């Protein structure tokens, strides 16, 4: 099969029946592997890693804070891609996937903000500071809330999908800012990237990076968060597809009788 044919085959999943059949087949894999990775990663990180020489035992918060923050940003980017697909190709499944992902993004952002505040208090002496990264994350959280509220506020699903897609495009600026705020402004309390930085991974730069003793369990946790995100979005998209069908059937019943 050529690359073009493979790419075209992807659009088959825009068919709700095909999407539901495929997601039901692969969902058990994602539920089980995410539970496994999260259990192994968190137990490894919590029980079997030493304290950091500067941050003491608070370093154990990294296994929740970093994966949640990564997923908060990447969830919005996934919503951006599916929203663009909706705007360009009008596939309902893609609009519903964006809608299904938003509450997952809210929870990930909330975990990142909450663990950040709890970690910040003993390290910085404050729960919160109007630091570029923290502030852009708070704005991203508000964008998530606005996105969900907009879906709920508009009755016609196609109009709701159009408007939320445009909101998603605008919010993407803040999703990118929350990732690169430290690099852009180079100020504030929050440290720069020390985990997901090319130089830190390959060891080609001399800046401070997370030691391997913390990095390996963190990597397992990140994989666990990604798998959990995929499982939740697949499952919730299936629910949105069924909810849409319920609405359509009820409308047909009303018209018919």
């Amino acid at each position: 099969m050529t690359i073009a044919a493979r790419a075209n085959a992807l659009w088959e999943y825009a068919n709700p029946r095909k999407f539901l059949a495929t997601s039901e087949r692969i969902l058990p894999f994602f539920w089980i592997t995410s539970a496994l990775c999260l259990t192994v990663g968190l137990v490894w990180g919590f029980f079997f890693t030493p304290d950091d020489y500067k941050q003491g035992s608070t370093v154990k918060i990294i296994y929740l804070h970093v994966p949640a923050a990564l997923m908060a940003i990447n969830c919005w980017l996934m919503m951006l891609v599916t929203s663009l697909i909706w705007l360009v190709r009008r596939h309902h499944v893609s609009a519903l996937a964006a809608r299904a992902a938003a509450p997952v993004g809210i929870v990930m952002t909330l975990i990142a903000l909450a663990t950040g505040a709890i970690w910040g208090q003993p390290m910085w002496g404050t729960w919160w500071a109007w630091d570029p990264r923290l502030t852009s994350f708070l704005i991203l959280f508000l964008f998530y809330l606005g996105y969900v509220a907009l879906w709920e506020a508009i009755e016609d699903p196609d109009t709701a999908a159009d408007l939320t897609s445009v909101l998603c495009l605008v919010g993407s600026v803040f999703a990118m800012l929350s990732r690169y705020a430290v690099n852009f402004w180079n100020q504030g309390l929050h440290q720069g990237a020390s985990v997901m930085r090319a130089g830190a991974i390959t060891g080609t730069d001399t800046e401070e990076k997370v030691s391997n003793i913390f990095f390996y369990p963190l990597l397992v946790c990140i994989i666990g968060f990604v798998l959990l995100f995929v499982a939740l979005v697949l499952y919730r998209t299936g629910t949105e597809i069924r909810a849409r069908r319920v609405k359509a059937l009820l409308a047909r019943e009303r018209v018919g009788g």
Partner: protein
Amino acid sequence: MIPDLGKYADAVLWSYAVSIGLLLALVAISVMRGRKVRTEMEKIEQRVTRNG
């Protein structure tokens, strides 16, 4: 069993409790709504089939 977390025990334990609690709540709410919508859809489909 719990490692000695020293003076930061509260911060670490609260972080884990809040995060795991939020993740479990998200999974539980998603699964409950999924089941409810599926049952509702099946009921309506049966009714539509019966009524032609």
